[in-house]
């Protein structure tokens, strides 16, 4: 028998009563999320699955600008310290309960407490003004406040108040949101099954990024957890999966040439080197400059991503249109071994071992590290590749005694304040007063223009100070069968407005 047919029968028989047809969409998902509670983790898998179930007050459009989602509209007070959110009416949770301001306040307070990004807003409070209105009160005005509310890492999912109150330390136990899909079942290590939420009320605006109209065009949405990349790939080719996520970059060219498969890319991740500036050799700026001078980004990225279409050499720490700046350009990608050697000499480098920690759980990170090691050794540095599994690696990088350099991939952020590489408490420990004060100034900037100006300045300084080295932007790539229509990722996978042709 045809396996595809079989699957569909299975899917339909299970959800037939719930949804009015529309078929099913099977996504070969690359990782099992650690939890379905978006606030409990920064893992992308949770975010991708969760954003179909949960929604937040604000969200991002394709230009990384905030747009309201559960709010009908937002007003900003004169002093810039209070935002008033008018909630959309008639929005119902998946359990049938209508969403009220109370739920939103409970959810936002949880977000405030759990999310790292929320903390950049300083001391804030959410108040329910009435059943349909929520106030956000800031201590100081902040231009990027709404963008921060729309952040996607640990996004501010709105859940019923009761669910939040019942939450344990490892997260909520009921998965109830307001999104276009509702949660049915999570068969551990097998699949996550969502089904169309028939009472979903979409925003009346064209879809744009995560914002705008959302419509479930399939009855059932399965995230099949398939950790093996070749399996995802073959499964897509046989039609067992409609979409295969995060395929190996090396397969890009081949899949692109395959007739019934469409490849879909979205450049939304930055690849950088982080230096350990708390301890060891890279506390010395000259050593950091030596590394920066020695690198040849093209080769590194070629090895990591294998195809030019999948990466873009870019020195911008904030690659969105709004933030683009010329500052720091000349420092980037110098490919100047002689200069590097000079820096080393000045710094008095005498063959100390440099530990480059990495993990093979992210092949591109590992591949980049291998080439970086090679390039640094060309200029006479002694580099040791320290490979471990992700769990060990993630503990290791918290410990300044264990490493000197890392290769890190960061998702694009909407505001500079969210950039991991600039955080003093984050691994790398960028504890520079000037950077700190500039970031504060940007957050408190009165207007976007001022904000931009401050950023230009900071960007130049960053390239001088070198908390790390930004290497490039790159894309993950997904592939779909030619029966899938309307799949357009933004900040990762989005399956509303996506349908499968019969």
């Amino acid at each position, binding site marked *: 028998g045809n396996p595809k047919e079989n699957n569909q029968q299975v899917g339909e028989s299970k959800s037939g009563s719930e949804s009015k047809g529309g078929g099913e969409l099977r996504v070969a998902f690359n990782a099992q999320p650690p939890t379905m509670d978006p606030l409990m983790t920064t893992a992308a898998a949770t975010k991708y699955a969760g954003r179909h179930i949960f929604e937040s007050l604000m969200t991002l459009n394709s230009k990384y600008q905030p747009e309201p989602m559960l709010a009908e509209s937002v007003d900003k007070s004169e002093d810039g310290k209070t935002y008033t959110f008018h909630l959309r009416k008639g929005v119902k949770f998946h359990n049938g309960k209508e969403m009220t301001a109370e739920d939103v306040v409970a959810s936002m307070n949880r977000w405030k407490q759990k999310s790292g990004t929320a903390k950049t807003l300083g001391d804030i409070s959410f108040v329910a003004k009435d059943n349909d209105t929520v106030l956000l009160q800031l201590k100081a005005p902040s231009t990027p406040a709404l963008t921060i509310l729309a952040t996607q890492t640990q996004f501010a999912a709105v859940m019923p108040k009761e669910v939040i109150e019942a939450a344990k330390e490892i997260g909520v136990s009921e998965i109830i949101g307001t999104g276009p899909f509702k949660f049915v079942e999570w068969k551990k290590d097998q699949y996550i099954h969502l089904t169309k939420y028939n009472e979903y009320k979409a925003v009346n605006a064209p879809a744009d990024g995560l914002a705008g109209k959302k419509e479930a065009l399939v009855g059932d949405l399965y995230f099949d957890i398939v950790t093996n990349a070749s399996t995802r790939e073959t499964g897509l080719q046989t039609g067992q999966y409609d979409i295969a996520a995060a395929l190996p970059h*090396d397969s890009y060219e081949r899949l692109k040439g395959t007739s019934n498969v469409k490849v879909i890319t979205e450049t939304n991740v930055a690849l950088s080197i982080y230096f350990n500036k708390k301890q060891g050799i890279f506390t010395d700026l000259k050593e950091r400059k030596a590394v920066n001078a020695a690198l040849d980004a093209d080769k590194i990225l070629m090895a990591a991503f294998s195809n030019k279409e999948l990466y873009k050499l870019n020195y911008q720490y904030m690659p969105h249109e709004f933030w683009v700046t010329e500052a720091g350009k000349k420092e980037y990608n110098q490919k100047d071994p002689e200069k590097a050697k000079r820096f080393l000499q000045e710094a008095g480098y005498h063959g100390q071992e440099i530990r480059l920690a990495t993990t*093979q759980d992210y092949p591109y990170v590992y591949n980049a590290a291998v080439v970086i090691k090679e390039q640094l050794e060309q200029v006479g540095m002694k580099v040791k590749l320290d490979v*471990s*599994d992700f769990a060990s690696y993630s503990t290791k990088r918290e410990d300044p005694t264990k490493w000197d350099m890392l290769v890190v991939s960061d998702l694009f952020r909407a505001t500079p304040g969210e950039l991991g590489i600039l955080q003093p408490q984050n691994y790398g420990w960028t504890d520079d007063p000037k950077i700190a004060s500039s970031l504060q100034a940007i957050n408190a900037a009165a207007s976007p223009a001022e904000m931009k100006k401050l950023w230009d300045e900071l960007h130049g300084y960053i390239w001088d100070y070198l908390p790390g080295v930004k290497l490039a932007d790159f894309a993950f790539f997904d592939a779909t069968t030619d029966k899938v229509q309307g799949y357009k990722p933004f900040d990762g996978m989005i399956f509303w407005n996506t349908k499968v042709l019969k």
Partner: protein
Amino acid sequence: MGAIQRSLDGNTKLLRIKNDLKKQQRNLLIRRFFSNKSVLIGSIIMILLVILVFFAPLIAPKGPYAMEVTNRLQAPSSAHLLGTDNFGRDLLGRIAYGAQVSMGVGFFVAFLASLLGMMIGLYASYYRSLDSLLMRICDGLMAIPGILLAIALMAAFGAKTENVVLALSIVFTPHIARAVRSAALVVREQTYIEAMKALGAPSWRIIWLHIAPNTLSPLIVQATFIFADAIIIEAALSFLGAGVPAPAPSWGNILSDGKTVIFNAWWLTLFPGITIILSVLGLNLFGDGLRDLLDPHTNQAKK
């Protein structure tokens, strides 16, 4: 009494006979060695691999790390006989240098596990009082996942090839122990073991010189399996960062690097795959043949 006291003359004559016999015996053994096809083929393969191990610098003068990223994933050509990998490193060179690591891991794991397993198996079968204790320990050891052990050891003692060997040896020891024990249980009941006791032989002698050789066939079968398994598992460990520390080449990690590009660059899996198969084949042929050579019985039923 006369028969006992031989003249000096007689003694030297006997010795001469003995020496002649020894020589004759050696010739017979050599002849048998060369007439035994499997040993012969096996040794040739093994010798080739040993050459690979020791002459890697000649085979790949640039070493296993020389990268040309622009030349990545090139199919075999005259410049790179076996093609290049995803960093543009010469595959032949990596395989040649990887031989050191992989053959080493395979060999030492098989050796250590055999030694330890044999010890456990033999003593468990000989001293019945130890049996259930040792076997239960083996049950326990078998259950501890090798990956876990490897990650733990790496973390505790640093990423070294020795730790891979140690972890895998511990994992495989119970397998050998069980196989040896089951064979030894039969052997220990044989009359010739009793005869050795009657001669006043100490236990260690009985165990190691009389029981052990008779458990060799299942041991060889298992040990060759372990050799192969160790090479392949080392790859899985490398992938988790718990194997041979990267970017040192091992057949295992070449293979798992190749795994992701198997559809684009077949040579990256094919060639290390073939080398692994060859080495296992060589070792097995050699082992089988050796066993046949050592086993007096198999000399009979042959044409």
